[in-house]
């Protein structure tokens, strides 16, 4: 067994390119190890890499933990962070890990889709940033090349004025989402809706967005139509956590509820 503990990003990137297994919070990798599905013999720990821990405006280092995002992140992403696993998991798990694992149920991913975030990757030959839609290509499949390290999530310089997250699961804590959703609303009335656990990758409900973005003061009928369109656009499956029918229903309910929150006056801090 061999392990490296770099503090410098270039050293970490080179180690990954050399075939070492990146280890951040370990909350996904160690489950695989404990269940004998993986046995990495050469590991590069990312916990000490200073650049990966930077949370600076729109650029969130891949090594920033959910605990920090819960406290320092933008509102809807902080709301999502608070629902990731347990305090123990949030102290260890990182946003880069969430992105790299690319679970359909990744709690942090709908926010990235809703604001059109980009994923930054580094290899010894340089860096590139990939729009979220090109990065997430399937269930636990991404556009990351084997010699690349995920270094950051890059948000737009300006976020929509309002953004809200909610999640449905079988209980309140320590739960994998049955459906999770982010709705954003800009001051000009443009709405985005992104959902998780309802498709192989995080997705946007674009028809619902177009319809409701044309309604500056949505009526009851418009809100109902918005929810119906979201339910129609999602492509969930029935599995051990829920049914297709329930997920469609919950997606519409959540999206409408979050839009209504976005339309209300902001809560006093």
């Amino acid at each position, binding site marked *: *067994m*061999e*392990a490296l*503990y770099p503090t410098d990003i270039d050293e970490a990137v080179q180690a990954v390119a050399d075939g070492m297994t990146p*280890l951040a*919070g*370990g*909350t996904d*990798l*160690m*489950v695989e*190890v*404990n*269940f004998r599905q993986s*046995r*990495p*013999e050469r*590991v590069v*720990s990312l*916990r000490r890499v200073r650049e990966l821990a930077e949370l600076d405006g729109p650029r969130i280092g891949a090594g920033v933990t959910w*605990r920090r995002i819960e406290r320092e992140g933008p509102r809807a992403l902080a709301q999502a962070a608070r629902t990731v*696993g*347990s*305090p*123990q*998991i949030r*102290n*260890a798990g990182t946003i880069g890990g969430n992105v790299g694992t690319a679970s359909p149920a990744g709690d942090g991913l709908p926010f990235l889709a809703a604001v059109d975030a980009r994923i930054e990757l580094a290899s010894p030959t340089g860096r590139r940033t990939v729009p979220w839609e090109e990065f997430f290509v399937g269930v636990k499949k991404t556009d990351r090349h084997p010699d690349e390290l995920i270094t950051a999530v890059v948000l737009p310089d300006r976020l929509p004025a309002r953004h809200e997250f909610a999640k449905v699961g079988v209980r*309140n*804590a*320590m739960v994998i989402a049955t459906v999770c959703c982010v709705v954003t609303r800009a001051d000009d009335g443009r709405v985005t809706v992104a959902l998780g656990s309802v498709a192989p990758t995080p997705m946007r409900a674009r028809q619902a967005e177009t319809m409701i973005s044309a309604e500056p003061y949505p009526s009851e009928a418009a809100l109902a139509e918005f929810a119906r369109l979201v339910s129609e656009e999602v492509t969930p499956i029935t599995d051990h956590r829920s049914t297709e029918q329930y997920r469609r229903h919950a997606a519409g309910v959540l999206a409408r509820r979050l839009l209504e929150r976005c339309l209300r006056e902001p809560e006093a801090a």
Partner: protein
Amino acid sequence: MIVSFRLNGEDTSFRVTHPASLLDVLRDELGAAGSKNACEQGECGSCSVLLDGQLVCSCLVMACDVEGSEVVTVEGIAGEELHPVQKAMNEAGAVQCGFCTPGFVVAAAELFQRNPTPSRGEIEEALAGNICRCTGYGAIIRAFEGLAGREAP
């Protein structure tokens, strides 16, 4: 390879030959069996420890990654006397089979260090990663509400 770290205030080192978890090394090599092994996937909290002051599941920490770090297990929570959270659990009868207790002790000690007067909601949220299979949550929450200076309703 040899990994060196501080365990409950003492310089400690161990040899790893495979990607073992910190939990396995604590229990099998370092004689610190207070942290319990149940789910091995971060769901139950019975292996909770403090890694550089942060509450984590030791089953999800790769042992080699504690190099240069400070780890506190349930064995390191009490001083000369039991820690206040341990006393509170004793007094409230908040221990049934006892398997989850070390994890609750570590999680509660971390909570009270951060926030000496947590509300019931804050206690519940801080302990959300610790499962008691005896379902003895009522007494556990009451113990810590008492410690926070709040009487249970």
